[in-house]
């Protein structure tokens, strides 16, 4: 399909009433979900997935992107008004937005965050459009050797970035790779590790694993502390005043900070495993280092809010770059998006831009559209934000658990999936309590079949396994994988030495 035709086709699909309405609902749901402490963006996306099964592919993905982009902004609300990050991505936002709100300017804090989020998302969408197609063109030329090494690299990066023990991180990645081997073998169709159990014949359903790991087990963690459940009641009293356009000028008068923080977000989003939860802190740190008045950071200044919020919103577009160009998800959220496309029968990889150009362009456009929708929705609804953050966990947790059950059932309408969900939720809770990071597990599950297929293809093409080390790109990726582990080990040893002295 020529580019203009694909572009027109994606515009036509995207600007249909059904898609616009479902995207708008997605934006609202994403913002609200992220505003509620204890309800993460990942949970919101995982639970949106089953709803999109009956939609056409682009509408489904656009809706999920809308939830994602909305969620990237929503964490701001509880961060600014309660001083509690609604999601891990808005930790740095609490540093300046909350003091600003306490000083009597909650409207300004929210406005700054909303505009910074909007521009961050915009910058990341531009980078995505520019970077993904050429990267895909290179990726198509990669052989199975390079692909296998790339996945190995991705797995080690994830394991070294998440959690505090690289041993545990790598073990979780491997566990994910193993879970993916249950069911039919990808090349010959031989059943593996099914033990004659019907439910396992087609392997562990990915969606059920996702919901169990990211929603059920985390929700259980939310209700551990009986005293925290009684919280609620806002800390900011009185009328919130908004001057959206004055604040917009304030954000735009910091172009260097805005652009730097957004690019930090894009780059960190594109690295597998690192996402908004890291980007906001690094963007904030970079802004502070570059500032002429670093001592004022943390007292409620605009630069801090702008850096954190544009940084975390920009990860949305960044994470899509490796997913669209290479078929390797940049984060758990991208893994869910990839699963959504796979359920629709679309294979995600470098050929996506060529084979399903309208879909790829549609996703680019949906990013822009969602950023605009979030902006409009937030500017009009800021007045009610305080009420959202006050919803107690005693309501959120059971309601979201019921949504999890619906999500697990919606896939195949099998009650056994629900039993599996309970089991996985319990295992996930125990793993989390023993300090095992869960994101590497999920990425392992989605990367497992790709890794195995490429490994076997490579050895089918040529029996010499030394090719993994002699082909330059493959060797380079393997060296990077070893380096990422080595650096983490060195960091841990240094930290231990520092702690001792």
């Amino acid at each position: 399909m020529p580019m203009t035709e694909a572009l027109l086709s994606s515009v036509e699909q995207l600007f249909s009433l059904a898609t616009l309405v479902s995207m708008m609902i997605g934006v609202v749901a994403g913002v609200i979900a992220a505003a509620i402490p204890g309800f993460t963006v990942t949970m919101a996306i995982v639970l949106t997935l089953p709803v999109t099964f009956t939609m056409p592919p682009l509408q489904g993905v656009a809706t999920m992107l809308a939830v994602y982009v909305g969620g990237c902004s929503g964490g701001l609300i509880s961060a600014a008004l309660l001083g509690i990050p609604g999601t891990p991505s808005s930790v740095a936002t609490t540093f300046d937005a909350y003091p600003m709100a306490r000083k009597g300017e909650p409207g300004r804090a929210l406005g700054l965050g909303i505009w910074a989020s909007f521009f961050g998302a915009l910058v990341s969408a531009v980078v995505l459009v520019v970077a993904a197609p050429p990267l895909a063109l290179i990726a198509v030329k990669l052989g199975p050797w390079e692909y296998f090494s790339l996945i190995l690299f991705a797995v080690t990066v994830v394991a070294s970035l998440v959690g505090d023990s690289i041993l545990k991180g790598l073990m979780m990645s491997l566990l994910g790779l193993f879970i993916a081997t249950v069911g039919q073998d990808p090349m010959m169709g031989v059943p593996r590790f099914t033990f004659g159990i019907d439910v396992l014949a087609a392997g562990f359903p990915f969606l059920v694993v996702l919901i169990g790991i990211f929603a059920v087990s985390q929700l259980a963690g939310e209700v551990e502390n009986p005293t925290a459940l009684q919280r609620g009641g806002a800390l900011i009293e009185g009328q919130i005043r908004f001057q959206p356009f004055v604040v917009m000028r304030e954000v735009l008068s910091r172009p260097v900070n805005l652009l730097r923080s957004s690019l930090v977000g894009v780059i960190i989003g594109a690295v597998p495993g690192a996402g908004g939860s890291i980007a906001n802190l690094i963007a904030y740190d970079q802004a502070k280092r570059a500032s002429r008045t670093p001592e004022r950071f943390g007292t409620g200044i605009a630069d801090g809010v702008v850096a954190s919020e544009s940084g975390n919103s920009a990860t949305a577009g960044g994470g899509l770059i490796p997913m669209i160009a290479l078929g390797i998800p940049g984060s758990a959220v991208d893994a869910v998006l990839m699963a959504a496309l796979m359920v629709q029968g679309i294979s995600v990889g470098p050929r996506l831009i060529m084979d399903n150009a309208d879909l790829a362009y549609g996703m680019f456009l949906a990013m822009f559209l969602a950023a605009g929708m979030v902006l409009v929705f937030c500017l009009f609804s800021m007045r009610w934000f305080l009420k959202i953050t006050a919803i107690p966990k005693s309501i959120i947790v059971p309601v979201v658990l019921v949504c999890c059950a619906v999500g697990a059932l919606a896939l195949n309408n099998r009650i056994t999936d629900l039993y599996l969900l309970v089991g996985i939720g319990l295992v996930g809770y125990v793993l989390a309590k023993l300090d095992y990071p869960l994101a590497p597990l999920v990425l392992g599950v989605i990367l497992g079949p790709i890794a195995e297929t490429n490994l076997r293809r490579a050895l089918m093409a040529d029996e010499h396994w030394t090719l993994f080390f002699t082909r330059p790109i493959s060797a380079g990726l393997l060296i990077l994988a070893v380096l990422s582990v080595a650096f983490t080990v060195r960091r841990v040893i240094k930290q231990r030495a520092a702690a001792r002295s």
Partner: protein
Amino acid sequence: MNHAVEATSRSEREVDHARGKALANTLFNVALAALFSALFVQAGELPSSMWEPLGAGSFPRLVLGALVVFNLALIVQSIGLYRRAPQQRSVGFARWCHERRLAFGTLFAFAIYALTMPWIGFMLASLAFLLTVQWLLGARHGRRLVVAIVVAIVFSVGLYALFSHVFLISLPKGRLW
């Protein structure tokens, strides 16, 4: 003064957990190592292929082998942590569970919810689950109880209606009726 007391009791709790966690991690990895070793042996029986050097069992064996190595490394690490953690402050598994009673209660209710759903149907099971867990988490009197009842009705009957009419996905109706 109060703050100081709170701070020490919190750090004590963490120390306690460090020791218990190390023990739990050791046992957990021993169990996993045994499981993965057994699966490793079982994977050897998977058929190989005429067309490729690696059969159906090779990749899983590679992964399982690596997993066992990591389990062993984690066992060594956990035993080291267990030895280093101070002994006298140990409080035991029962208290750890008691502190998390609400989390386990919620998960237990969720398990019951899943088990009863095929019999009594999505709507009724959800209604009961929502009421129970909200009550468990503190909505017991007055306004909060009323809100809990409203929420329970909206998210059981409402979700069922939404999925059957809008998304055309039918949730379990219940075998008993």
